[in-house]
């Protein structure tokens, strides 16, 4: 499925860039992320427990912050697999800042496979969008929190 959208952040482009390339912030914001371990420059292994209500699954995943063009854009490449199936995606993240506001635009392609793809079609794209929403909300909160702590 295609996913795209944009969010406005109250911060300079550099601040937002730092946030979006900081693996700890990403781990905090990603739904269900339990651990994130660096395995190479820009590369991470992750353990994620993702679920909604009764529907839950554990996924082992890999992330990569690829082709960084600081502080403007990078590609976030991720994949996770577990018994419910696998998720793979490549997302282009672009930052456009002016003064104290930065717009983060994302555009990507996510593939879902395995059990959930076969029996969960009805809600997959909706749930994916919802999780993205959650992710960006959390990132906004983190920016706010780091800002109030002084930068």
């Amino acid at each position, binding site marked *: 499925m295609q996913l795209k959208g944009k969010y406005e952040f109250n911060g300079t482009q550099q601040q937002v860039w730092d946030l979006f390339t900081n693996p700890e912030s990403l781990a905090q914001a990603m739904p269900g992320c339990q651990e994130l371990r660096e395995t190479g420059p820009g590369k991470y292994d992750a353990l994620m427990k993702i679920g909604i209500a009764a529907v839950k699954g554990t996924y082992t995943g890999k992330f990569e912050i690829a082709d960084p063009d600081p502080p403007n854009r990078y590609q976030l490449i991720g994949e996770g697999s577990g018994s*419910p199936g696998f998720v793979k995606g490549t997302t282009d993240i672009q930052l456009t800042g002016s003064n104290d506001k930065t717009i983060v635009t994302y555009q990507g392609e996510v593939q879902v496979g395995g059990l959930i793809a076969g029996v969960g079609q009805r809600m997959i794209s909706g749930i994916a969008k919802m999780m993205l929403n959650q992710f960006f909300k959390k990132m906004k909160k983190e920016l706010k929190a780091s800002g109030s702590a002084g930068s």
Partner: protein
Amino acid sequence: MKPAAFDYIAPKTVEEVISLLTTHEDEAKILAGGQSLMPIMNFRLGRPGLLIDINGLDELDYIKQQDDHLLIGGLTRERTVERSPLVRDLCPLLSQAISFVGHTAIRNRGTVGGSLVHADPSGEIPTAFCALDGRVKAVGPDGERWIDPGEFFLTFLTTSLEPTELLVEVKVPVLPQGTGWSFMELSRRVGDFAIIGVATLLFMNGDGTCREARIALGGVAPTPFRAEEAEEVLAGQAIGEELISRAGELAGEAADAEDDYHASAEYRQEMAKIMVSRSLRQALARTGKGN
């Protein structure tokens, strides 16, 4: 399609249930009708460690009238509510909505409480509940509380019920005489999940104008929701075809549908408009004031 191993317990009282939920929280799931939970477990999409079977809690199975409300116990079977003369008489929107839930065999086991807690975005009972401004009573370790209409459904399959709470009662209004009501659904086959479900209510003034309109849509957003702009267009008005079309359009615009294999987002959006209009027409006819 065999579930992963789980523990099972069948408590006899609500207190026991709360105690178990407090101990196990997220690891436990309530088993009521099981019509949604069993497939989830059999597909291993969900693996609760503990299944708390509440089917023995007969005290949660009731339908009674309390002044201008109906109180329905959380464990009341959908089929019981569907066939209840009290509900058909006093809150027919709910019985009609339930008649669209799956097939009879499913409704024989499924419960009203279970359906609400499961919070399927296209669920008929959640959609009707949304139009009715229903309230639920939850019991938890800190006692009981009522959850207001509009605050119950949060997102896909998620309500504001805490992991330590049990839904024990559902409260819906008795519809005043002369209220127009309608539940309609578009689905691929009879009994399938709704592509769009619509619940409408027209509360009328003595002079034949509409005092308040309620339009709830299911299946076109993460939760059922009320099309407020569409409702406002009708409030206080004498309702005719033009207003019905306008309300339909506004409701359609409020829908946030997704493409899936069965229907495109564009089709769903357009169907929201069509079905809301059709439902309003049916509701209006039931007020006896339609032309």
